């Protein structure tokens, strides 16, 4: 008798309830239906509740007069609409977030690198800074800085730095750059410079790509993009600079002037003013976030393996070159994702300004909620605004990270 030694293969027709392909799709659809039902239930529940109170979701109130004052921000009067008032809040939030992100990044990188210093004193100071400021609630810090701002000297006894920055109980006064009558003609030169530069770069890149490197093998030939970068660096930048600088001297009036704040009878006039509320919020957010960014930077640098530094040293690079050419380029891709979430935290934490009365998005939204019966809608508007800002930041940072991370696909 022959014995069958071939392995048994189970290949019956699979019933649908055991078929992996079917089950995957099935559960996803089930999940989706569940979510839609739940959302629908909550929404109709909310509408019913509002109806019982005699309220309806209605956007038209945005076109009515707001009737409240806002202490600072873009041009606005109390007779303007709610929509205008809301936009003042949006701009103020964006302003404090952008300046805050810029400063926090700078300070954070400084302390992050300082924490890895071989110098004991530098290292210790950086550690103390980081451990203090990231372990105290940020709202407390903001209120502390606000209290500090309010005990600064009076206007006529301002603390003066270099005779151009003045700090007093009304906030910080800085020189500002103002366009003059010469600005518009100069902008034309600027435009000409840009157009000229683009034409030259494209022409040069095309020439290099199609003629100069033609005989090279395709893989060795610099890409069209790299030719554009080459041109931008060596040709466009000089042309642009020359045109704009020549334009600067050809315009009858210097396009910009530096306006110094000046003490007059009723306080400082001219220049830029950061109110005590804005300053306190900015310092609070910047200091708090920079402590976290310092940690992000430190861990990013430490993530670069020791062998990389050793290899860099062994080809004779100096310590500063090791850091700049080998360590930092590898640390940046590690740093950027957590850095992005710190940026988002900073922007979201700016809503804590409600504690000190800086008129940002949440503060103004809160006032609007108090004056109208559209709390749900206004909350939704505020949330959507934060969401849009955050998603835009994320998208930009992701794009940045992709554009700098090129290490080749591993085999």
């Amino acid at each position: 008798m022959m014995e069958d030694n071939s392995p048994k293969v189970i290949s019956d027709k699979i019933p649908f309830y055991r078929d992996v392909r079917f089950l995957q799709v099935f559960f996803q659809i089930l999940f989706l239906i569940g979510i839609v039902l739940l959302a629908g239930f909550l929404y109709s529940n909310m509408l019913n509740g509002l109806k019982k109170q005699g309220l309806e979701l209605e956007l038209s109130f945005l076109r009515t007069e707001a009737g409240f004052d806002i202490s600072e921000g873009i041009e606005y009067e109390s007779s303007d609409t709610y929509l205008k008032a809301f936009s003042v809040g949006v701009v103020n939030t964006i302003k404090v977030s952008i300046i805050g992100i810029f400063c926090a990044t700078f300070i954070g990188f400084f302390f992050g690198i300082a924490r890895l210093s071989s110098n004991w004193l530098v290292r210790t100071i950086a550690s103390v800074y980081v451990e203090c400021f990231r372990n105290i609630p940020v709202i407390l810090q903001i209120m502390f800085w606000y209290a500090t701002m309010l005990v600064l000297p009076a206007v006529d006894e301002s603390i003066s730095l270099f005779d151009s920055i003045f700090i007093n109980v009304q906030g910080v006064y800085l020189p500002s750059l103002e366009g003059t009558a010469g600005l518009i003609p100069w902008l034309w030169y600027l435009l000409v410079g840009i157009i000229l530069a683009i034409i030259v770069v494209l022409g040069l890149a095309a020439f290099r790509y199609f003629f100069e490197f033609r005989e090279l093998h395709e893989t060795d030939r610099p890409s069209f993009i790299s030719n554009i970068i080459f041109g931008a660096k060596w040709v466009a930048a000089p042309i642009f600079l020359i045109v704009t600088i020549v334009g600067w001297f050809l315009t009858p009036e210097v396009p910009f002037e530096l306006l110094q704040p000046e003490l007059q009878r009723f306080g400082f006039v001219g220049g830029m003013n950061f109110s005590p509320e804005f300053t306190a919020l900015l310092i609070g957010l910047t200091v708090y976030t920079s402590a976290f960014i310092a940690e992000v930077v430190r861990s990013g640098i430490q993530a670069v393996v020791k062998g990389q530094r050793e290899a860099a040293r062994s080809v004779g690079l100096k310590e500063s070159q090791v850091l700049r050419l080998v360590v930092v380029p590898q640390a940046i891709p590690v740093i950027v994702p957590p850095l992005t979430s710190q940026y988002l935290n900073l922007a979201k934490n700016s809503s804590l300004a409600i504690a000190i009365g800086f008129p940002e998005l949440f503060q103004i939204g809160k006032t609007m909620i108090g004056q109208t019966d559209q709390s749900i809608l206004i909350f939704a508007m505020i949330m959507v605004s934060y969401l849009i800002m955050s998603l835009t930041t994320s998208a930009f940072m992701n794009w940045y990270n992709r554009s700098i991370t090129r290490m080749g696909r591993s085999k």
Partner: protein
Amino acid sequence: MNENTTNDPIIICEDVHKWFDDFHVLKGITTTFKKGERAVICGPSGSGKSTFIRTINRLEEHQRGTIIVDGIELSNDLRNINLIRQEVGMVFQQFNLFPHLTNIKNITLGPIQVRKMSKKAAEEAALALLERMDIADQAYKYPAEISGGQQQRVAIARALAMEPKIMLFDEPTSALDPEMISEVLDVMRELAHSGMTMLVVTHEMGFAREVADRVMFFDEGVVIEEAAPADFFDNPQHERTKLFISQTLQH
């Protein structure tokens, strides 16, 4: 002695000691390497052989004794350290290529930044080196895109691009798949015949027997035996050496 070895000393080590905290890794190494000499350093793991060659370009600091490389004393003087690092090339077990740079940029980094060579000249030299390593076609790829054996050859090219007088190899084939070991050893063999002074930490006993002028055996931080390869392998003096050779050759 090979045809390239001279009598001029290029590395002089006098009573070199090194501690890692309480652990005494190097317990007084005294030896001299001559220009053009090929020394293979072997020994069990933890014997201090890697640490020893790493002290020669100051990747590890020695705490007692003197090391003189090409007439320059390795002290705490930053200038001396940098000068010596320019004269000494190093190849690592894990290759340590810079992953964010293409292979050719890995090679030209040192010449451009340290030797202040023009980009064009550095690239020409790099391509010639890659040609010599038989991997010219990999120049514009990233390290992650090529095999381990190719990466190690790029790493050797990177070290050679600085035109060093001495090459240190720290277990250059230990992280490689068996079929890639020979391509790296071939390159090293070729380099040895060109007259380069080489200090090689390796377990490749065949390579040692064929290429080395001298085999040094490290154990517990001291050189317990050193001899020409023929004597070392066929007539070891020390019990510890005999044991090591019999164990290594079994594999």
